[in-house]
């Protein structure tokens, strides 16, 4: 009996949430390690899903929302593709980004005039296949447009990072990963995984401040 079940489970068509096996549509190589070991071990696949949408929900600026993704972006910017930032709320400060290890020649900043144009730009960038990561701060985003973005990220094999307010946590979303950033007390940033492909872990406490490099660092070695 047990053998029969095992045989059944070995069929490639069966996806098991409990196993840390990524689904065939997202092979292991397509995950982007976040650079924080506590977060990587909590995320299925060991990092942010590449070729999919990730939502980062937070209310306050300055709690570490960008520091969370900087090591991953630094690694991606040296991988031969580009990174796009669409409708950022402030000026991305070039010296700081360079100090975090991001190759500025691979960075594109887009300031669309309004919200529909912003969503259109995000979709174009995700779909083009030339952007390793697309960071976007959309002011409004409904379920249908998120679905379009998710499909675009899949077809362009691009990591889409949407930064939204926490009110969006109650809305439906097709994103592969949804993180809520809580108020960080002192050094630590509370991360709650709202949704992921695999078994969710509750809350992660992350020290984003002292582990992020301050001085210009050597490029991270590429995997593979």
């Amino acid at each position: 009996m047990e053998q029969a079940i095992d045989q059944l489970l070995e069929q490639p068509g069966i996806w098991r949430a409990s196993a840390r096996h990524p689904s065939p549509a997202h092979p292991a190589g397509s995950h982007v390690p976040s650079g924080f070991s506590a977060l990587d071990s909590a995320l299925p696949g060991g990092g942010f899903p590449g070729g999919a949408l990730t939502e980062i929900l937070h209310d306050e600026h300055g709690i570490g929302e960008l520091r969370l993704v900087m090591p991953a972006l630094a690694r991606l910017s040296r991988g031969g593709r580009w990174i796009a930032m669409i409708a950022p709320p402030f000026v991305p400060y070039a010296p700081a980004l360079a100090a975090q290890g991001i190759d500025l020649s691979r960075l594109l900043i887009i300031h669309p005039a309004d919200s529909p144009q912003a969503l259109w730009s995000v979709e174009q960038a995700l779909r083009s296949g030339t952007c390793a990561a697309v960071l976007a701060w959309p002011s409004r985003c409904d379920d249908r447009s998120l679905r379009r973005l998710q499909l675009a990220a899949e077809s362009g094999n691009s990591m889409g990072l949407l930064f939204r307010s926490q009110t969006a946590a109650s809305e439906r979303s097709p994103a592969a990963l949804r993180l809520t950033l809580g108020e960080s007390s002192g050094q630590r940033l509370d991360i709650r995984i709202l949704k992921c492909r695999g078994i969710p872990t509750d809350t992660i406490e992350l020290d984003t401040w002292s582990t992020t490099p301050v001085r210009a660092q050597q490029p991270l070695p590429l995997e593979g």
Partner: protein
Amino acid sequence: MLWLCLHFFHLPVECFSGGQDAEQPLFVSEAGRIIGCNHQARRHGIQPDMTPTAARALVAHGHHHVRDPERERHALERLATWAGRFSPRVSLQAPAALLLEIEGSLRYFQGLEPLRQGILEGVRQLGHRATMGIAPTPTAAWLLARAGDETPVTARRTLAPRLGGLSIAVLPVEQRVTAALQGLGCETIGDIRALPRAGATRRLGRGLLEMLQRAHGERPDPRENWQPPARFDRQLQLLEAATDIDMLRPELQRLVDELCISLRRRDAGIRRLRFALHHRQGRPTLLPVGVLAPCRDAGHLKWLLDRRLDGLTLSGDVVAIHLRAGRFHPMPGTSTALDLLDEGHDRNVTEDWHRLIETLNSRLGEARVHRLAVHAEHRPEKAWAYHPPGSAVQQKTIPATVARPCWLLKQPVPLKSPQGKPEYEARPLLLEDGPERIETGWWDGHDVTRDYYRARTRQGQRIWIFRDRRGQRRWYLHGIFA
């Protein structure tokens, strides 16, 4: 060498009608006499040598133009660019003829007759009329074309008898010389050649005899190759004012096609097109289209143009379209067939990347897509800059010893500071690090003298604030450690 000459005998009129036989009678005059008219005008009884006044009496709605050599020259240059598809060696023979060296083209066009037919058909489609002369020397071809003698002369030994039979009327000489020739009893070119050389030179001038020597191949006859200009500037007058964009599309696309033909002729690419739509009143609507790498792909340019037109609303009827294309750039040689090397993939990614930026540019406008650069500068607001995506950017940085925030505010925002202690969104701040004094820029009038601190709220927000060391010593928020 075999030369083919196209003599556009009707060019003074055709350059005004734009190659189309218009509905309206049209006639052209020079020095108070009509020198040519179109079919419609002829039907109304207008003939050469009439005075324009007499012609205007015959037709009520006719267009009368004074002959415009400048315009004829432009029309001829356009025709020369077009003729480049038949031969790589095209030269202008002012005022109204083109010379094509066709010996090298015969094989490609499978013989003389198909080539002749192809050229004549093309001339007809462009709405022009021309006579054709074919001879081993350019001058002879020209004389044959002027005479309207279309039988080709392919062998050099038959050249002298054929030229000898032409009337002296085909020679491009002044009336005085023609009269002198008639006085000598010369009626054909052969008669002139039979004159004793010394006497003929004295009476007729050296120029005429040397031209005949060139025609017979007895004197070198170098010709300058026609090169289309390295710019494109074309205005299209619309016969019917366009009221909506869909009416404009075919005309705009025709201009793009023309541009791409002249780019291919020069083996060049373009990075910037400027369309201007002229209205009856007011300023023209401008439509810039840009690409990142030099391009002569008509399909791609039309596609970008379409994206640009999508977001456009016309402020009025369009009566004319003007396309001006900026500098022609040399196109690096590309081979699409040989992708054996690994570079193929990289190039595709770069091409896709250019395509993405061009798409964004054409839909959002060019001032909305940027690249980021660092400058070697201590003032935070001057240590970064936006650049257009196509440009080369030098990254110069001062190694930072202290952490810098990822977000910078465009303008520093004043903070409230009750009892001298700064607050952010009514939350008290803890100063974590500082001060870092930045005091510089006295040489350019934007000097700053500030003490920067890293501050934290109880909620864990980390921000970058400074205290101005001058004036009221106020506190400002300048960045966010996001």
